[in-house]
């Protein structure tokens, strides 16, 4: 056996970042972290900022498209007995609206924001497993493209965003429509699960020295909790949609009662995920909002520990209430009462967060800048959604309210108020950091008015429609039902809401065409990301910052204290311990590469082909295996200190 050839080079002598003056260090880092040029470089990029930006932009486009569908739905329902959309089209439209908003806009949007912000907030240069991160984006991208392709071919999913079998099953869901739905779930959940793991590891291992758990920004906490929710909830829906695909393609019987299956199995597997999903969307949003509140109240968030505990208990409780989506299915009454109680309990932590914000605002030195307006709409809209949620959690009330328009009203109040409003606030807040440009204020004001008024009138009248007995998912309604007026109000409100997003888009595009002139820290915020230039360089921090409080930029005037000693001739990042964030290891970062993109393409082809026949999964495994080897193939970069190598090493 040939002697082992581990090269025994001790890299202690290699010059480190602190050995050169800052200016030259910047040049070195620019050089080390540079991407290949052109399209190839773009496909190779594994930088968390560019991947995060792509997530955000893609999700925003999904928002606009699905929003346009909603506008069409409201045109159809504006007046009774209209035939603008036939039932087939209408079913595709509302299914696409719900599916895209939940799976392709909301969740990827918060993922994108996490991918972009978390490493900046914790003072890291990268997100953990950056190549996996790039892979996840391309998988998500193709999943979305597939769904829209099916829509433009008039073959979109049409069984609702929770596609209950048997309607979505093999006998009553003809064609490949529901397969597109099920496979879309596979695409997006693969991406989401990958991102969740990256975020968890990033938060636990890549925090700047000194940023112990109790000094983490609230958004980082909410990202951590959210990622755990994703990890613990999404496997169930992936399994459920796989069952559905198998039922439809190879004739398994998971949802076929005649052969021992059960249609409620799907509802359990789906809602066990889909209720926590609301918190997957909601928790990061209140994390973002907390920073807006803190910054403009000009004081550290009141009750930081309480807020963090509230986030965690929200995450835990969200797993204990999926059955409240199934009260009408005739499950045991007593169990229902338990789930009703637990569903209401979750209002307590959510309320606690709101009270802490109020306390922060009241005791702070408030400056009422534009982002704060969306905090106001958060209170107006989300509290309504939360309270109507409490109504729906009561078993007897739910029996009357469920599947009526009270439900769309509730979920839109919650998601538009609780998730979209904070996300818009966050956009106005972090846009300068991302792009170096401040968004236009007057446009923002008009947008805010349209947003709030539109939201209130649209979803308020939907609530009343539900009370007057209008069931959801109807493509038309007879005039004799006397639902005309409220539907018209709902439609007008919806269009105002849509208009506000048109203005938003215009504002963003117009601003992007302006020169970059935003300062490092336009809002005098307290987080680490505001110590960077706008937009930040590809390596984020020239020197790893050293953190000694929750609001570093407020507590340490002058430049941040730093930690030195990383190599600059190759990509390195500092790994710290889980709880106290003490420096523990210099981790070499993988180079940019195109393999994640190729791997994602191979995966996508396999997933799409497997909607038609089972064999592709088998033969697709071979190219996939090859690509994975190429992706993970190691390059010689690190060597152990001579002492720690086994005996044979010395012979080399």
């Amino acid at each position, binding site marked *: 056996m040939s002697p082992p050839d581990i090269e025994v080079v001790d890299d202690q002598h290699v010059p480190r970042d602190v050995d050169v003056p800052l200016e030259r260090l910047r040049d070195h880092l620019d050089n080390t972290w540079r991407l290949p040029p052109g399209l190839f470089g773009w496909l190779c990029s594994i930088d968390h900022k560019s991947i995060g930006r792509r997530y955000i932009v893609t999700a925003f486009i999904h928002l606009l498209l699905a929003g346009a569908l909603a506008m069409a739905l409201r045109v159809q329902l504006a007046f009774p007995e209209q035939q603008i959309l036939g039932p087939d089209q209408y*079913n595709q439209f509302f299914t696409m609206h719900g599916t895209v908003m939940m799976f392709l806009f909301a969740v990827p949007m918060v993922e994108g924001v996490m991918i972009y912000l978390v490493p900046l907030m914790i003072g890291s240069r990268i997100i953990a497993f950056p190549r996996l991160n790039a892979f996840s984006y391309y998988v998500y991208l193709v999943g979305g493209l597939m769904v829209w392709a099916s829509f433009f071919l008039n073959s979109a999913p049409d069984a609702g965003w929770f596609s209950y079998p048997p309607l979505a099953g093999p006998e009553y869901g003809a064609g490949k429509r529901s397969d597109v739905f099920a496979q879309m779930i596979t695409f997006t959940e693969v991406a989401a699960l990958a991102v969740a793991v990256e975020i968890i590891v990033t938060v636990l291992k890549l925090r700047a020295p000194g940023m112990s758990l109790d000094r983490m920004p609230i958004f980082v906490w909410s990202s951590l909790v959210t990622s755990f929710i994703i990890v613990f909830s999404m496997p169930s829906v992936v399994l459920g949609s796989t069952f559905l695909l198998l039922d439809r393609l190879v004739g398994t019987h998971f949802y076929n009662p005649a052969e021992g299956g059960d249609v409620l199995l799907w509802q359990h597997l789906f809602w066990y995920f889909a209720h926590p999903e609301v918190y997957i969307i909601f928790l990061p949003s209140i994390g973002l909002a907390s920073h807006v509140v803190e910054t403009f109240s000009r004081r550290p968030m009141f009750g930081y520990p309480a807020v963090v505990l509230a986030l965690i208990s929200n995450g835990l409780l969200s797993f204990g209430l999926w059955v409240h989506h199934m009260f009408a299915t005739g499950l045991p009454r007593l169990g229902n009462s338990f789930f009703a109680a637990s569903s209401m309990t979750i*209002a307590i932590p959510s*309320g606690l967060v709101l009270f802490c914000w109020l*306390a922060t605002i009241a005791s702070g030195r408030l400056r009422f800048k534009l982002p704060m307006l969306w905090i106001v709409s958060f209170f107006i809209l989300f*509290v309504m959604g939360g309270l109507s949620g409490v109504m729906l959690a*009561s078993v007897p009330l739910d029996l*009357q309210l469920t599947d009526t328009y009270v439900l769309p009203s509730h979920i839109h109040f919650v998601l538009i108020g609780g998730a979209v409003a904070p996300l818009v606030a966050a956009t106005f807040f972090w846009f300068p950091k991302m792009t170096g440009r401040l968004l236009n204020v007057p446009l923002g004001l008009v947008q805010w008015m349209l947003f709030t008024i539109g939201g209130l009138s649209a979803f308020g009248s939907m609530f009343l429609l539900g009370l007057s007995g209008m069931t959801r998912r109807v493509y038309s309604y007879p005039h004799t039902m006397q639902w005309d007026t409220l539907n018209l109000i709902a439609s007008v409100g919806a269009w105002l809401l849509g208009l506000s997003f048109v203005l938003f888009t215009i504002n963003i595009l117009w601003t992007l065409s302006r020169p970059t002139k935003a300062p490092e820290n336009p809002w005098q915020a307290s987080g680490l990301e505001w110590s960077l230039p706008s937009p930040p360089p590809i390596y984020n921090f020239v020197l790893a910052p050293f953190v000694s409080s929750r609001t570093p930029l407020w507590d340490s005037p002058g430049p941040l204290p730093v930690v030195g000693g990383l190599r600059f001739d190759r990509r390195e990042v500092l790994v710290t311990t889980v709880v106290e964030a003490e420096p523990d290891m210099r981790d070499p970062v993988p180079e940019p590469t195109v393999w994640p993109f190729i791997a994602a393409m191979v995966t996508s082809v396999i997933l799409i082909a497997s909607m038609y026949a089972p064999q592709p999964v088998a033969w697709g495994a071979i190219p996939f295996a090859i690509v994975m080897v190429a992706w993970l193939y190691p390059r010689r970069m690190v060597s152990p200190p001579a002492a720690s190598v086994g005996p044979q090493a010395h012979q080399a």
Partner: protein
Amino acid sequence: MNRAAAILAGAALAGCSRNPSILLDTAGPHANEIQWLFWLFFWVCAAVWLCVIGLLGFATWRGLRRWRDTPAPATAPAEERRLVAWVSTGVGLTFAILTLFVGASYAVDRKLISLDSGPTMEIQITGHQWWWEIQYLGETPSAQFTTANELHVPSGSTVKLKLRSSDVIHSFWIPNVAGKRDIIPGRENEATIRVDRDGVWHGRCAEFCGYQHAFMGLTLIAETPDKFEKWKASQRLPAAAPQSDEEKRGQEIFETGPCGACHVIRGTSADGHSNYAPELTHLKSRSSIGAGAAPNVKGYLGAWILDPHGIKPGVHMPPNLQNADDFQALLAYLETLK
């Protein structure tokens, strides 16, 4: 309360009887129980919402008054204590309200269960895409009969409905009478209703079930026991024999043409399957066709036969273009099915 409701719910609800609302015009004890529970929730929630918005206004006003350009240091311990008191009060109140809600819901749920006891008759309702098959179960086969989309019950008596589905998940819901109960393939669900007020109540399928989920209507007719018995007796009878030659020709067309392949008319050789298509033995005794899609008058009936998709797109019944005379004969015959 209810007048407040009328104002609140606006034009859509105001002052119309037989309104599909769950708030006005309840027809049975189940709906009544849920109604007062709703108002309890509604007014408390409204108060909470106003308080929160008020607090936000107050906090903003207070914060703006203290505005400085430099970030505040951690606030004074005294104020911090006051804030803690405020927040914990808020949380405490939230907890109290939720306890009230849980208790009230539980009580009402118990009450609803007790209301289900001691049904005096059983009716089997089968949900189809997109209509309702209704079977009145009697002791003897002769006492049983099947009809569609129109449910007659004697007012004041507790009726147990056995809910079955022949295809996908539906949900049985008559807003003025009681809450929903899903109809799930492979499961045997039951709903119990009691209608105390005579009259016509409109229900519909509440769980999305495909193209015509929007027009899967169900009419509930509550009438005095003797009227109900009369109706039952008339429904048990086979179809009346046609009189005129045109009507006879119509029956022949029905039996030999496409109609008889799916529909049933008792007393004729049209023995399709009453679980594929609505039974037509007493078609004209019903107020609507196509599960509430259109009124049951000769014009609509003709249009329905020629092109059902014009009225109810996606329905399973195909277009039927007879030549004009056959068509008129068929209509004339159907008009006799009182």
